[in-house]
């Protein structure tokens, strides 16, 4: 058995444990920051695109197109204003012929913090989170939505859960649930069916009929039910407010003022194999002439959003690169300072027959190892960090982001950190190379 180069390096590092650990942490923070930013940038945009799916237009009465997309597709907040039944009919009569689908949606209720989207069965048969899914193309393979369990709703008070919503609430097909209307406070109060708050629609029990496969979109954390049931429970609230003795409300009690929607998902008819239509600009222009509604092109809104975020993104990545370079400087400083203490060690090794070249290699391996340890720790940090960012995005803006670590990009960042470490070791290595043996073995006469 002989003493190895790695054993020498290990002793060198453990002898300066504090300095080594702080240097590794510095590199780790830089690597984690870089990887998290790169990962979130790619997966963030992918998640946004999956949310808007294959729709071309979103009609609402929100204050701006971007807000309508964030609310209507990403469930940021329930839209504040509704489109009433006459307006919906007017729009439908005027535009539906040109559309591949024209799907009304209504938001405002929730179940244990998960938004409920009341819509029509077309939502599952025509709309798809896959932007490339063409519902009119006979050659299109597969279905727009996949069920993990159960079936889609086809009657009032049946509800289908998105995959995340099902996972987080633990509901099963066949369970009965009560949805709540109103604020976060009332949602939290209804964590169990027994803890009804005044805002819980306790007279109407929904039956869970299906659970969707994950789509990686914002819809994974939503619940889907039909518009009629949603209209009935709100009509019931209205009727009870007018007459507290009312105990039952059915579809026959609905008035036009109950039939409100908060958004319309629209896709203009396209030719087979195409995802765009030349008619979109003309339809858009006509729709925008109507000032009582807000019309958004979700894809364009997302692109605009990413243009705004993109420049910040580039600044952040430049900053992460700067942090990586400064972590390289930290390695250099740590080793350079330690070389002062190690001159005697270098001199002794030289006396024992170690060549200058080998001394240089030892220092370079040591600095590259600091880079490697930092990179591995940073990699672990990035996995955790991106999960934290992903859950924050989900909680704050309802964006479901699955952090994606591109293997090539991840490997590049790790290799860059190791190279940076090795480069940072050059100056200390040169110092070691130049160490005078005679001067550093004093006192010797």
């Amino acid at each position, binding site marked *: 058995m*002989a003493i190895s180069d790695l054993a020498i390096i290990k002793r060198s590092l453990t*002898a300066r444990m504090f300095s080594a650990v702080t240097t590794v942490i510095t590199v780790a923070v830089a690597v984690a920051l870089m990887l998290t930013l790169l990962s979130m940038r790619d997966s963030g945009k992918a998640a946004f695109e999956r949310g808007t799916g294959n729709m071309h237009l979103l009609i609402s009465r929100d204050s701006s197109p971007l807000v309508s997309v964030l609310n209507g597709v990403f469930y940021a907040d329930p839209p504040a204003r509704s489109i009433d039944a006459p307006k919906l009919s007017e729009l439908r009569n005027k535009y539906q012929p040109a559309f591949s689908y024209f799907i009304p949606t209504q938001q405002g209720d929730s179940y244990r913090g998960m938004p409920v989207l009341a819509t029509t069965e077309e939502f599952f048969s025509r709309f798809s989170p896959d932007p490339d899914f063409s519902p009119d193309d006979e050659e299109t393979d597969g279905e727009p939505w996949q069920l993990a369990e159960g079936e889609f709703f086809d009657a009032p008070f049946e509800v289908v859960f998105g995959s995340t919503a099902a996972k987080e609430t633990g509901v099963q097909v066949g369970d009965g649930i009560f949805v709540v209307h109103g604020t976060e406070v009332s949602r939290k109060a209804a964590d169990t069916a027994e803890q009804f708050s005044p805002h819980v629609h306790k007279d109407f029990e929904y039956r869970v009929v299906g659970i969707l496969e994950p789509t990686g979109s914002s819809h994974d954390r939503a619940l889907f039910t039909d518009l009629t049931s949603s209209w009935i429970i709100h009509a019931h609230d209205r009727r009870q407010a007018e007459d507290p003795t009312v105990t039952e409300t059915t579809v026959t009690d609905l008035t036009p003022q109950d039939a409100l929607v908060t958004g319309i998902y629209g896709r203009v008819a396209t030719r087979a194999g195409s995802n765009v239509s030349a008619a979109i600009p003309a339809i858009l222009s006509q729709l925008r002439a109507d000032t009582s509604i807000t019309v958004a092109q979700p894809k364009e809104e997302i692109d605009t959003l990413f243009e705004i975020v993109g420049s910040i993104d580039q600044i952040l990545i430049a900053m992460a690169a700067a942090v990586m370079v400064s972590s390289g400087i930290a390695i250099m400083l740590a080793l350079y300072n330690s070389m002062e203490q190690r001159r*005697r060690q270098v001199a002794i*090794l*030289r006396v024992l*027959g170690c060549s200058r070249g080998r001394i240089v290699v030892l220092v370079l391996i040591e600095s590259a190892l600091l880079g490697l340890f930092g990179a591995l720790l940073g990699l672990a940090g990035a996995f955790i960090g991106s999960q934290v960012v992903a859950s924050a995005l989900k909680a704050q803006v309802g964006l479901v982001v699955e952090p994606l670590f591109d293997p090539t990009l991840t490997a590049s960042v790790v290799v860059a950190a190791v190279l940076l470490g090795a480069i940072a070791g050059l100056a200390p290595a040169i110092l070691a190379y130049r160490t005078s043996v*005679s001067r550093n073995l004093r006192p010797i*006469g």
Partner: protein
Amino acid sequence: MAAALDITDLRFRYPNTTADVVRIDRFTLASGEQALLTAASGEGKSTLLQLVAGLMDPGHGFIRVDGTDVHGLHGAKRDLFRGTKIGMIFQTFNLLQGFTAAENVMMALKFSPVPKGEHRARAVELLSTTGLDTPDREVTQLSVGQQQRVAVARAAATSPVLVLADEPTASLDPETGEAAMDLIQETCRSIGAALVCTSHDPAMASRFERRESLGALRGETASQGA
């Protein structure tokens, strides 16, 4: 058989000085021979030993160790030659901190042609020969006398032809110093290495049959050799 050390016409002076610090016309040391080199402090004893070890280059002359011109070798070859043929013992021992006694000895073997598989066993055996039975204790936990043993074992590890001991007893009390010198001289005899020991301690003279002063070698006074 080549002399362990053969110095011819050696001159050395530091940059920007006018006088030679080392000037030796001729000095030879037979294989296994032991010599004491005396000089006052600052007279160039350490400089001479570093020239012999190839850690410094002379301005003029030749130093041959075991028949090889030390300064005819360059870079890693000279380092390998030093690591294999020359053992060095210092006043302050210059052990590697943070390493055990055995590892300090193994470090000398690391840069030699000795097969890797033998390093540990050889180090432990050498330490045992010098009287140290705690090879796995870190050197900072050892007494001064024990550290001296590690230094001697390390110098002898590669079975060098020449051991250079630079003031090996200067930081020891007289009693420990005596024991240390016994160990150094006995170890060199047992491995057949020649020994050059520098000292300004007059009490050392009786231990060596051959005694030289740097002044005499410079031609200033006669040799004190027996």
